[in-house]
């Protein structure tokens, strides 16, 4: 009887220490850690206190079909170079083209017009190569630049560039890369690499490119 009482107390104690008000259980696929978002969060087997998010998401933003996005959000939202960041600012990141080994891995990806879809074997080979390299080298961080061609509106292209860089980041996370090791930056159509007005120039500019930092 005493053992049952102690056991019950232990169970109750665990519930009170690891669950905060507003607890709502939910099954999570293929993950051991849990998501903390706003005031709606779950019990965790990890009893460390979850960091308070620095923004409020829409309450039904669960992307159950995109587990990688959970990791994207869960990751540190401190930008490189900002107070509290363990990663220096973008000025410490290098163009992989300056390194023969890295240039073969961190190749530029290209996109269809007005799209952030990552298609084609060449693009997917690059994603896999980058993911393999970063998983093998957890001290490597990347900025993923999103660019557009000249034809879209100036302001909206800044959003489209962000959409493209996030598409790459999301795919890398899905391939097992730590979300804390990648960051996005959108340049819209502000930094073209081809200055003509042909289909080939536009194709060259619709891209995601990498900058690399090794800690």
């Amino acid at each position, binding site marked *: 009887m005493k053992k049952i009482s102690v056991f019950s107390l232990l169970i109750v104690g665990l519930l009170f220490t690891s669950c905060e008000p507003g607890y709502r259980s939910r099954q999570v696929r293929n993950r051991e850690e849990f998501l903390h978002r706003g005031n709606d969060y779950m019990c965790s087997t990890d009893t460390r206190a979850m960091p308070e*998010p*620095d*923004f*409020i*998401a*829409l*309450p*039904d*933003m669960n992307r159950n079909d995109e587990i990688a*996005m959970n990791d*994207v*959000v869960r990751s*540190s*939202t*401190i*930008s*490189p*170079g*900002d*107070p509290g960041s363990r990663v220096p*600012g*973008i*000025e410490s*990141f290098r163009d992989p083209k300056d390194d023969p080994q890295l240039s073969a891995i961190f190749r530029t990806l290209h996109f269809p017009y*007005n799209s*952030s879809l990552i298609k084609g074997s060449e693009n997917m080979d690059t994603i896999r190569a980058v993911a393999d390299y970063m998983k093998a080298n957890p001290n490597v961080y990347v*900025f993923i630049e999103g660019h557009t061609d000249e034809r*879209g*509106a*100036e*302001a*909206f292209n*800044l*959003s*489209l560039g*962000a*959409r493209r*860089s*996030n*598409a790459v*980041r*999301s795919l890398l996370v899905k391939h097992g890369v730590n979300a804390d090791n990648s*960051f*996005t*930056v*959108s340049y819209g159509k*502000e*930094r073209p690499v081809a200055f003509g007005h042909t289909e080939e120039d536009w194709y060259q500019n619709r891209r995601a490119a990498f900058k690399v930092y090794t800690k």
Partner: protein
Amino acid sequence: MFRLILLMSLCLVSLRAEEEIVVMLSTENQLIPITVGFADEKSGFDAGYVKKLEDVLRFDLNYNGMTTVSNQGVYSVKVRVNEHKLYARVSNGKQEKSIEGLVLSGYLNEDRRVIHRLANAIHFELFGTQGIAESRFLFTKKMGKNSEVWEADYDGQNARQLTQEGGYCVTPCYIPPKSGKMPGSYLYVSYKNGQPKIFAAPLKGGNGQRVSYLGGNQLMPTMSRQRDVLAFISDVMGNPDLFILPFNPESGATDKPRQIYSAGLAAQGTPSFNPDGSKVAFVSNKDGSPRVYVMDVPALGTRLKDIKTQLISKSNQESTAPAWSPDGTKMAYCSMTKGTRQIWMYDFVKKEERQLTQGPGNKENPSWASNSLHIVFNSTAVGDSEIYLLNLKQPNTLKLTSGPGDKRFPNFMP
């Protein structure tokens, strides 16, 4: 040989005609003729200087959207310059009013603003409303890899550089001032830290301060006229979505940023509040191509599935950069029209879209003046991107800027 010369002449004429940006007017708009007299009565300045001041006044009265300077008119204004002071008599054909007390310094940039003040006073006497002659606009000037924020008078004069970052700044916007005051600060996006982030800076000069340390890209800020909330685009959730941030211009953020709209894997952009801050217009390509939508600003806890958006730009496949007029009755935006971006307007009263501009060059980023009549925008009609001014009552747009560099993202003083 004669036929060849004739053919070449015809080509030159047609090319010249294509250079102009023409405003498509509503048929009921008419400007009131006004005569302008400007007399130098021992002004203390040379005749050439007085002529320059007269030209400024004539410009202001020609492009206020209400009057047109003419040799004949019921309305009239007679200005005397005597011992560095301006004396004006304004008549609407029935009554005469005097405007006095404006002092000239002899420095053209300062005296231009004195003349603008006179023009606004004339406007108020004739129409009972403020003109825009004392207004200013922000814009960015891109030279090579650098882009800085500038400010100019509404006529493009007195341009001065505000940011000195040596980096890349885009999409500036004024923080609306307290009632009866002039704006004292502005927001802009800078890439100086790597990712684009929103900064607030004083117009009188000084470094910008970060508005939020939210991670990810922060883009396209805009402030409500109530001065209590800022809307912007952030990809902190892994997608460029619409966020708001409760914000006090004096003390900074008063709460956490809040996501208010997302749409699958679509990109959202360019938010713009309505005058009372209850609605926000924005761009999204959630339905395939970028279009302009309006939604209510959702209360905290509202679910995405309960948020309804209203499509505004139905006439064209691709529309972006919405700007809500200060009186709330209109929305300006740019739409791809037969291969060229033109400025369009949606009339909330008539519930119809109207194309405002035509002619060559992509026209983007419209911004309303406080009178809900004038719009500044940037256009590539002459090659480099320049800032233009249009008003809904006059057919010709005015090119306000010139010289090297691309001038873009204009934002009119609220």
